[in-house]
Structure formats: structure tokens, C-alpha cells
């Protein structure tokens, strides 16, 4: 570990608490007092009491968050009392997020509509039934009648919600392959 912090004023307790708070917050994983001590070149005991103080602060002000120890490290999490609201929030937030598979299927539907599931399979080379379902659930695509061919398969196209979510007035505003090529060259 590289340690580049130059000689400095020793940190006050308050400062150390705040720095630990920031580092625990940015960390992707629970972070141990040992690691914090190393990075900050402080005694492990100093870090431990800073975290204790931090924890007490969150308790005292009845914060919606708490500092908890998990798997040998420290991490923020929401307070259990509010799990109902958190769940609700995470569920209802409109999300334009898609898995890569769904995104691929959406791309084929957008550019080849109206299109049937076998045709999508043919273009993507992968079964796309579950992506189709996801996209229908998210209301990004809709059924557009049936194709007059053997088995009369369903035809799919993009929905109004699709236009809204991707900020398009109508389908003609979809960028074309040529638009892209213009940028690449």
C-alpha cells in the first residue's frame, strides 16, 4: 500500500470520525478498522473509538441509517424500521434499466418492428422469450397483431412508453445506423 500522506497536523477526534464516515460511505464493501488505520496512518484503537463515536452519533439523532459491523467490517445500512418504505421505494422507482439480453431484444424490436419471436431468434441467434416477457412487463413493447403466416405468430413493436422513456417524439427519431457511422468516421 502506498502511503503518501505527508507530515500533517494530527487529526482531531471529530475529524477522524468524519473521515471514517466518508470512507465507510464510499467503500463498496464493509471496511475494517485495520484497513482504515493503515490508509489513514492512525492507530487501530483510534479508528475503533472513532467508529464507536460515529455509531453513537447515528443512534442518538435517530437517523434513518446506522453504522453496523458485518463480516469483519463496517458499513452503512438503513434502519430496519424503515424497511417497508425502502422496499416500496426501490420497487416503485421508474426504471429504464435493462439486462443486456433485454436490451438486445429491445433493439431488435425497435429496429425491425413489427417482428415475431422466431424472427428475433433468427436475428439474435438466442432464445428471447424471457426478454420479451420482461419488455412486455416494463411496457416497453406491445403486441401488434399476428403475422399471417404458419402458426400466426404474435407481432411485437415498441410502445408509447418506450418513446417516452427514451425521449423520442416518434420512431423516426430513433438514430439510424447511418447516424452512427457518421460519428465513427
Amino acid at each position: 500500500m502506498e502511503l503518501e500522506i505527508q507530515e500533517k497536523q494530527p487529526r482531531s477526534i471529530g475529524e477522524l470520525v468524519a473521515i471514517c464516515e466518508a470512507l465507510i460511505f464510499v467503500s463498496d464493501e464493509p471496511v475494517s478498522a485495520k484497513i482504515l488505520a493503515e490508509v489513514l496512518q492512525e492507530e487501530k484503537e483510534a479508528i475503533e473509538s472513532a467508529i464507536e463515536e460515529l455509531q453513537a452519533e447515528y443512534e442518538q439523532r435517530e437517523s434513518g441509517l446506522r453504522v453496523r459491523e458485518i463480516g469483519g467490517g463496517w458499513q452503512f445500512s438503513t434502519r430496519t424500521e424503515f424497511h417497508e418504505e425502502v422496499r416500496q421505494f426501490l420497487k416503485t422507482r421508474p426504471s429504464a434499466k435493462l439486462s443486456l439480453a433485454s436490451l438486445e431484444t429491445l433493439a431488435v424490436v425497435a429496429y425491425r418492428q413489427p417482428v415475431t419471436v422466431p424472427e428475433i431468434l433468427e436475428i439474435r441467434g438466442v432464445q428471447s422469450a424471457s426478454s420479451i416477457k420482461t419488455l412486455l412487463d416494463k411496457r416497453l413493447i406491445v403486441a401488434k397483431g399476428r403475422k399471417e403466416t404458419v402458426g400466426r405468430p404474435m407481432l411485437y413493436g415498441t410502445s408509447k412508453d418506450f418513446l417516452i422513456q427514451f425521449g423520442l417524439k416518434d420512431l423516426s427519431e430513433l438514430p439510424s445506423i447511418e447516424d452512427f457511422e457518421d460519428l465513427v468516421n
Partner: protein
Amino acid sequence: MEQQQPEQLSFDFESVQPHIVRESRDQINLELGEFAGPLDLLLYLIKQEQANIFDIPIARITDEYLKYIRLMKSMDVSLAADFIVMAATLIEIKSKMLLPRDPVSDAEEEFEDPREELVNQLLEHEKFKRASEMLYERSTVEQATFSRGKIETDENNLEVSATVFDILKVFRKIMERHKEEVQMEIAREEMSLADMLKNIKARIFSGKAVNLLDIFKEMKSKNELVLAFIAVLEIVRTESVILVQEKVFGDIILRKI
């Protein structure tokens, strides 16, 4: 498509702030870097000359500009076409400036300065240059703040938030993939019946008995399989070749008579 965690921007400013170092009256040297464009270079030259942007000494600036272009060329730096276009514009303005004003024309008639359009463009450009400096400063400040690390609930959502261009890019990739597959198929199917006949005959007449199953196993597609089947029938019909099955349900052997 990368996952969300907002990327931290950094800017490559050290290397892009170019510098022209004057060696002598006729020789200039360039310290590494690139101008963001011809207007950028022009502004730089005007400042170097401490000239008034509203009264650009066009002849001098044009010379300097051309010197720069030549220098870049001699250094084998590929110049954007836009730099050349600007050189042409400068030369054009310069020549217009040299033209005597039409004495017949009414003095009242507005004299159009050939430099006017360029000056407007430079002024407009200067504004945006300052705006981009402002953006740079903002992002530098912003780089001192960090957002939260990943938490568990983010993981439930291992998904990408896509823009219209992501859809296009993905579609382009699919089409490329698709094209490759189709081409591979075509390549495979390019074997004709004649080729197939020749191949199988060659094997039979090389002397060894050939197991029919082996031939069929080697075929890479349904199409080839059909071709091989027809070829075998054709060979048996036209050549002195027989099909032998030594045991019931045993392998079928092709053998020349």
C-alpha cells in the same frame, strides 16, 4: 455498456496546452500539444502578436498560421482538414484586403470588411472556450466529492440504464454478429455437388474402403449432408463402386469394384 458508478472525469490538459516557441523571426517551434481547432490556433496567434481581434493584421497572422501548418506537416502530424480550410479562408481574406476599393461604388454604401465573418466566429469561439474552462473548473471541484459505494440493493439491479444510442449500438453489434453467421453459413454451403463428388470419389479410388458413416459424420451442415448423400448415390450409379453392408445394421462400406 459500463455499470453506473459515475466515472470520475479527468482532463488531459497538460498535454493539450500547446506552445509555440519562437526561435528566431522565421523559425518557430512547437511544443507538443494540439489545438482544439483552427479557431483556437488563430486566437492563440492573435494573442501572441498582441493584435486587436477587431482589427486583425491579416497578412501577418496568415503568415504565422501557414508557418504553423507547414511545421505540423514537416513533423508528420496529421492535420485535420479544418486547419487547411481555415488556411484557405485566411488567404482569401488576405487577397480581398489587398483589392483596392471600388472607387465607383457609393461611399455611403456600407463597406464590408472581409474579416468581419471571421471576427464574429472568433468572438463566438472565445465565449465557448471560456465556457469550457468554466466546465473544467467545475469538474475539478466535483472530483473532490465522491458518491456512495455499492450497497446490497444495487446488486439486485445488475442492469444497465440505457439511452437511445445504446439501443442503436447494441443493434449494430447484433447485425454484425448476424452477418458473420450468415457469411459462415454461406462459406460452408459453397461446396457444390461437383466438389462433393470429386472429394468422395478421390477417397474411394485412393484404394481404401470408405465407411459411409464416416463421410456423413464429417459433414458440417444439413446441406452438406444432403450433398454427400446425393453424391454417394450418384457415384454408385455411375462408377464401378458398390455399397457393402457386412452385417445387418452394420456399417455400410463403399468400395470400388
